[in-house]
């Protein structure tokens, strides 16, 4: 499969007082088109920094990122969707209006906007809550709206930064299942950051374990399990063990 995203010799350093801190050091990574890639690592290993660079929020100090063979800086922001850990919904917009936001920015007309937004709200099973303001929605519902909003923008490449980290276990599990369902329907490339190893094994085609200080790729684990995955499957447990060990050693 061809590469959707190609990360070459990526480095990120910054000054902390008068000391140079290297957050990421020589990251080389190819992400295939339609791949579900999950990045795990201890906190402070640079996984969120990597996501922020891919999202275009911060500029790397070295190396290159190619999206469809073109430098990402030139690609603009049109082709990436981001789901954040905190609820980043706009409180002054209803669920539907939140999902419509990206389409508005793209200049899609009102009628099509509504149609597309409703389609994605349906995908996350929220059609009954279209006209509700975010503060009346539960945490899980808010993140479903956020997922719908990112997808409705129809990006080539989806970035998710611990999107379900703040949710309770039951809600998180159902949203993980939903994420896989949506991914299978849309076949977008996903770059997913988490510190939850069970989540990584459940979601990923491939797990990248980052080691910290300076952040580098420690190990790559291919998850060769069929979907939907059963967390009691011996192979599943084995992969969890392998990933856990890699995270600890890294």
């Amino acid at each position, binding site marked *: 499969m061809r590469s959707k995203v190609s990360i070459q010799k990526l480095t990120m350093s910054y000054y902390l007082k008068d000391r140079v801190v290297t957050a990421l050091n020589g990251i080389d990574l190819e992400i295939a088109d339609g791949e579900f890639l999950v990045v795990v690592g201890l906190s402070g290993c640079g996984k969120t920094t990597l996501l922020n660079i891919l999202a*275009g*929020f911060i500029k790397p100090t070295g190396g290159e990122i190619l999206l469809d063979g073109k430098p990402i800086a030139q690609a603009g922001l049109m082709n990436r969707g*981001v789901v*954040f850990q905190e609820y980043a919904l706009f409180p002054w917009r209803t669920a539907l209006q939140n999902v419509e936001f990206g389409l508005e*920015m793209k200049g899609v007309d009102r009628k099509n906007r509504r149609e597309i937004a409703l389609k994605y709200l349906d995908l996350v099973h929220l059609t009954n809550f279209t006209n509700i*303001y975010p*503060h009346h929605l539960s945490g899980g519902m808010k993140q479903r709206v956020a997922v719908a909003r990112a997808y409705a923008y129809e990006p080539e490449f989806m970035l998710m930064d611990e999107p379900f980290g703040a949710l309770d276990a039951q809600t998180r599990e159902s949203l993980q299942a939903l994420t896989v369902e949506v991914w299978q329907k849309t076949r977008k490339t996903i770059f997913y950051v988490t510190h939850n190893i069970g989540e990584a094994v459940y979601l990923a085609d491939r797990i990248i374990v980052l080691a910290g200080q300076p952040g580098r790729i420690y190990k790559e684990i291919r998850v060769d399990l069929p979907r939907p995955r059963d967390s009691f499957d011996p192979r599943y447990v084995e992969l969890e063990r392998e990933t856990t060990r890699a995270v600890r050693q890294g």
Partner: protein
Amino acid sequence: MQAEQEIQLPRASSMWEKTWQWCAANLPSFIVIFALWEIVSRIWGDPVLFPTLEVIASRGWELTKSGILLKHTFATAYRILGSMVLAISLGVLIGFAMGRYRIWERFWLPIVAVLLPIPALAWTPVVVLWFGLGDVTMIFITTFGAVLPIISNTWTGAKSVNPAWIRAANSMNCGGHRLFFRIIFPGSLPFILSGVRVGLARAWRAGVAAEMVAASDWGLGYAIFASREFLDISFMLCGIAMIGLVGFVMEKFIFQNIETMTVIKWGMMEDVQVGGG
């Protein structure tokens, strides 16, 4: 077998019930105060210096019927309204410039910090010498009173817009003026509204006080002050009651409605009811 139980939802209370509840909550305090007033005025027994409620009420009715009281009220309200339009435009503009651009923040911050504690009224003699008695002076003073809290609140609001909203918007190609109108402005609205609320209260107080010194012939402050010449305490009291009433109406019917339709509906601010119910 158990009979199916009907679910009783609490009924939404009607307009009349709400009014009744509001009266029941707030009227007793007024009744006690009025009763005390009446007792003191009877004991004192001076109808000029401490008139009874009946005398005040009949004077009030007279003034309302002839339209004099309303004309004074409108004169004051019109000045305040004009200065609020000015203060909001200026304050929001400067506040956002400070909140978004470092250089404007550096320029305005010391100025605002120095001017904020000065009561608007203190400027009256200076402004009277510049512009004479009348509307220009009045609007200058009230605008000054209102603009500073609006500036400082808008500034705080613009700085405290959730960075996650800005990133989310950025990730969907929203920047520049689109980011301002769609994210920064609604995101700082709770702060702006509370700044405008404080500004209006300050303008209203400074305005009435300044009218006593600087208005030429109309306005509640002017009327109250002028009626000392005729020992017309009832007129003064009616004027004072009117000041309170207008302030209350502005707060209750204008501000609370704007907030209910925006920041409270969006869950960005708690619903705090002034004056009960």
